[in-house]
């Protein structure tokens, strides 16, 4: 079943269509939420809320719009509402520099099973994931949407509800800040 057909069927209350959509998007939605809130327990809660919101809002979904962008926008709105509730200043400010480097995201990267001869690549991924977590959420999300979700700049602007110039500006600053963090923490070998 294609995405468009699944969306139409979900509008009619078809639960099989819901299963199709969840199976198709579960990893992307969860990864995006985890990048935003960083805590797996919070990401799980928001994951469930996102799909409840999908079921609630599916009738107002415009089929002419990109479903990926619409879905991630719902997830983003819930995540930002959550972040505003728990820590109003966290949306713009970098996280505490003294926070432990061994974070959940880095543990996820490190726990990825693989042969020992790939340990260097895994170590680099762990450093990168740890550095990514230290960025402000507005940079984490554009980097995740561009490099992990592989969304076009126009699609990212749609999700964020911002002009293209803002997306590009955040991409540039996010990458620059990420590189500075990596080089400061692990040297230029990264």
């Amino acid at each position, binding site marked *: 079943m294609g995405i468009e057909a699944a969306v139409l069927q979900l509008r009619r*209350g078809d*639960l099989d269509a*819901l*299963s199709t959509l*969840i199976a198709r998007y*579960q*990893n992307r939605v*969860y*990864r995006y939420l*985890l990048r935003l809130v960083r805590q*797996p327990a919070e990401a*799980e809660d928001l*994951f*469930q809320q996102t*799909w*409840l919101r*999908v*079921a*609630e809002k599916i009738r107002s979904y415009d089929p002419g719009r990109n479903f990926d962008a619409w879905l991630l926008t719902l997830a983003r709105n819930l995540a930002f509402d959550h972040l505003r509730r728990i820590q109003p200043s966290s949306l713009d400010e970098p996280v505490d520099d003294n926070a432990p480097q061994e974070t959940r*995201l880095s543990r*996820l*990267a490190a726990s*990825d099973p693989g042969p020992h001869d790939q340990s260097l*690549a895994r170590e*680099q*991924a762990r450093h*990168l*994931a740890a550095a*990514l977590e230290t960025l402000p959420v507005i940079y984490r999300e554009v*980097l995740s949407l*561009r*490099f*992990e979700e*592989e969304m076009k*700049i126009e699609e990212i602007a749609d999700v964020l509800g911002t002009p293209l110039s803002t*997306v*590009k500006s955040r*991409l*540039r600053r996010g*990458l*620059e800040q*990420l*590189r500075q963090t*990596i080089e400061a923490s692990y040297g*230029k070998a*990264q």
Partner: protein
Amino acid sequence: MNGIDEHAQIREQLPLFVAGALDAQTEAQIARHAASCPACAAELERWQLISGGLRRLPTPQPSQSLVARTRTAVAEQIAERAEQGQNRTVLILLVCFSWIVTIAGWPLFRFLTGGVLSFLDIRFHQAWLVFAIVSGLTWLASGSAAVLLSARRQQERRVAL
């Protein structure tokens, strides 16, 4: 544009270059410059290490139990909304039925008790009392039907869960 300015401009664009956020003309310009400038090529390679690393980050996956819980929660929400819609429809129908009985009951009652000529008699006598009782019973029956239907649906949902 002198050489230093060009290097600076090229390097400033490199983060957006590796992000694929530049137009084709600027991308071609940067690629040409990097091909002939080892220093900028090395800088580009560093940015590519970062962008490549971001693309290869492991994808965290939700647990199967979370996915199952989510499916169940959404299915319940959809079922609940459908039930609310049905309840609303039934309630509207019952209210319409009650109003129809109320409005149509009086002339019907007069016709049955006094014939066609009774319509010309505007006096109420004691007939209004019977009419009021019939109307009251109609509304009571409709209300009871709504409550019983709601209770039955709730019981069916409890059994289904």
